[in-house]
């Protein structure tokens, strides 16, 4: 019986308004490939960040190779032997492959980097991985998949005992993924413990030996042998019975008139082809697809951020053109709640009033562009009340609010602007379960009041619970529009099969 290389016992971690980890256990054996599964917001990324020293757990025990640890920085984790390949690339673009592989600790003689040893070390790492790359190529010239391999090689050079791969296949092709799996198997054969995070269950079943599933911050399945489960059973663990089968009654949508927004055969400058769907007043249309399917990008194009190069766009039956975001927002009443509310949604250092009123300044401006702070505050207060946003006053800074309240503020902005078509992008990522349910109710309520809502979400249960119709998106195209009968098992099966058929074809 081999000793575990890493164990985590009863980890807890709270953030403002969210309990990200609520008792997580993990046992990692050397030479195994360990799948870490869970839906968005289940606590996977928090766990990864704790293991790699970006966050510190509030309580719980962590043991690496027999010694307890509590990393204060990513550097400490690296030195201790935990290598990680994040979803974002962490390479220096203008450095060569060899320089990047040895970045953390370049070999030196007399204080100067020894290029010869550097190349030898880098080559050794690549040989172990069984990949061929030109050591002097600049990283900018590599493909995404090749960059990933460089990052793995980087982890090898510092003799990582644990290698963490965070959604490594999200942005690479099937063939490249197969190559990556071979690399993982090789590493495992060398005794490295690999943690593999992925949304794609097929590849998890193909590659992994052991599985841990997180749901709402709890490890509901702990370091279990993967071969003892079926895919459906794993999905049940991820989704949770009661949530997957949450019953939301079907809503009656009047689709006899003209749709609020209709896209037919839309192509965009960023690669969308033949995108067609429509949304009616009072309706929630879900855009579902895998990461990278081009859903957020589509919403941004319709907001005027990327040019639409062909196809027909109709607003209430009238053909429109969107040149600027100004047109979309002020003329056509299109709004977009971004998935990235901290970086792209809110003005964190501004007060709540400004954050809500930002879309209405043009409208409430009087002569000489003058705006009355009283008007502004009245409107902001109205939506603070209507969405029950918890603030001490409208002058509280947006950065001081909890995630759920921040999300409501970014929604309030569009209601204040009297938006008629609202794109809501991943609204409940990083929000705890109760707030999530409240937010779902809010979305349905807004639709009942006549708003046309396009919901973009990677959370399939969420889409099935809320949407009246679901548009399946893949590879910057719309595959089909499905009437949602709100029965999760049949809907999820139908949608996933449709997407799988495309990935196999490609």
């Amino acid at each position, binding site marked *: 019986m081999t000793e575990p290389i890493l164990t985590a016992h009863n980890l807890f971690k709270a953030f403002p308004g969210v309990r990200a980890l609520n008792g997580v256990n993990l046992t990692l054996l050397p030479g195994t490939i360990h799948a870490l599964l869970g839906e968005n917001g289940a606590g996977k990324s928090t766990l990864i960040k704790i293991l790699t020293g970006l966050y510190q757990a509030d309580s719980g025990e962590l043991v690496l190779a027999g010694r307890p640890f509590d990393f204060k920085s990513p550097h400490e984790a690296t030195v201790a032997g935990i290598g990680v390949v994040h979803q974002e690339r962490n390479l220096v673009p203008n450095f060569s492959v060899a320089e990047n592989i040895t970045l953390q600790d370049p070999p030196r003689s007399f204080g100067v980097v020894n290029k010869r040893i550097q190349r030898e070390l880098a080559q050794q790492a690549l040989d172990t991985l069984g990949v061929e790359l030109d050591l002097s190529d600049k990283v900018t010239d590599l493909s995404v998949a090749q960059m990933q391999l460089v990052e793995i090689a980087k982890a090898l050079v510092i003799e990582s005992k644990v290698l963490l791969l965070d959604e490594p296949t999200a942005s690479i092709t099937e063939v490249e993924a197969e190559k990556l799996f071979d690399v993982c198997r090789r590493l495992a054969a060398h005794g490295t413990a690999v943690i593999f995070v992925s949304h794609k269950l097929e590849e998890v079943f193909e590659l992994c030996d052991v599985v841990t599933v997180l749901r709402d911050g709890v490890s509901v399945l702990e370091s279990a042998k993967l071969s003892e489960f079926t895919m459906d059973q794993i999905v049940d663990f991820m989704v949770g019975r009661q949530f997957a089968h949450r019953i939301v009654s079907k809503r009656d949508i009047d689709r006899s008139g003209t749709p609020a927004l209709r896209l037919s055969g839309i192509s965009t400058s960023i690669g969308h082809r033949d995108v067609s769907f429509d949304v009616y007043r009072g309706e929630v249309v879900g855009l579902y697809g895998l990461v990278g399917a081009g859903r957020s990008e589509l919403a941004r194009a319709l907001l005027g951020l990327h040019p639409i190069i062909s196809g027909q766009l109709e607003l209430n039956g009238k053909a429109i053109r969107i040149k600027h975001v100004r047109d979309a927002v002020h003329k056509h009443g299109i709004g977009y709640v971004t998935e990235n509310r901290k970086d792209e*949604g809110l*003005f964190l*250092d501004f007060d709540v009033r*400004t954050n809500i009123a930002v879309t209405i300044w043009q409208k409430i401006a009087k002569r000489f562009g003058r705006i009355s702070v009283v008007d502004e505050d009245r409107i902001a207060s109205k939506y603070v009340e209507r969405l029950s946003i918890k603030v001490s006053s409208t002058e509280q800074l947006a950065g*001081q609010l909890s995630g759920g309240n921040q999300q409501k503020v970014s929604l309030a902005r569009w209601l204040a602007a009297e938006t008629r078509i609202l794109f809501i992008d991943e609204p409940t990522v990083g929000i705890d379960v109760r707030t999530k349910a409240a937010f779902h109710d809010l979305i349905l309520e807004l639709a009942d009041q006549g708003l046309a809502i396009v919901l973009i979400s990677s959370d399939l249960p969420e889409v099935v619970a809320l949407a009246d119709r679901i548009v399946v998106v893949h590879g910057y195209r719309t595959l089909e529009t499905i009437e949602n009968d709100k029965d999760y098992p049949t809907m999820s099966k139908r949608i996933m099969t449709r997407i799988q058929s495309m990935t196999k074809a490609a």
Partner: protein
Amino acid sequence: MMRDLIPGRFAFGKTNLTLPTILIIGYVILAADSGGTLLSKQALRGILAYLAVPIIIGLAQMVVLAIGQMNLAIGAMGGATCALMATLMADHQIPVALALIIGLTFATLLGVINGILVVITQLNGFIITLGTMTILLGVQYRLVRSFTVDKYSSALQEFGQQNIAGVPYLFIIAIAVAAVLSLYFAKTASGRNLLATGGNAVAARLSGISNVRSIIKAHLISGILVGVASGLSIASLSGINRSIGGDWLLPSFAAPIIGGVLLSGGTVAIFGTVMAAGVVRLVDVARAQYSLDPSWVNFVLGIIVLSTVALSEWRKRRAEENRITVRA
């Protein structure tokens, strides 16, 4: 009155009373130590008259800081504008009013050019204005060479000496400009849009605000203000040469930064900038009073600016830490 123009806490540096207090205490100490000569009407007039230009150039820098950029060309723009106006009046007998209008238009255009260049190249204003600065220094030299142009309207210079109830016209103009700017940021959609761009450009864009317009507007307003400062300069000086504007850059940063404006953008502090310009002026008065070497002023000013930036960065970090612990 200025305080009333600055509402609550919308993106403005908190109107705190530290700077006015420093200003008053400093003035009282200097006055007492001078044996009362600093309290004379004439001395006070001198202090206020030479405060006008620092206030305006501080505001000119502040507007660009509000969008998270910097204008390094402030001094060079002012120098070239002064040189243009002076030569128009002295060598081409252009009437005062017309020369002032041409100067103001010229400075505004320079601002617009800076803005457009920033938008087109998508580079930070820092680099663009570093370039335009160098070009304009050349323009200034071409216009006045190594001479001092002083044969321009004496009426303008007289205007520079006049006052109402002991308050120089020049100072009144500076305060009026500050008041208008304050209204612009507090009460107009355009001013708010500009601050939103500085606060979070991506969020502003997704909310339907044109960052391109905000950037051009900020540089344009900066240009107008430099134009005003140039006019005030000509009125308060006896001649224009190639050194005018050469000592504007540091004070233009000192006033807004000490006044509470963040380098990261999204804030303005008009009251603070005016007060801080006063404090800087006080350092200069002290130098004169004790006949210290002029290099001391730069020395002290440099230290004040550095410590203000360090202090505000430290405060910001602490506030963020508090934010996190409070919410957790």
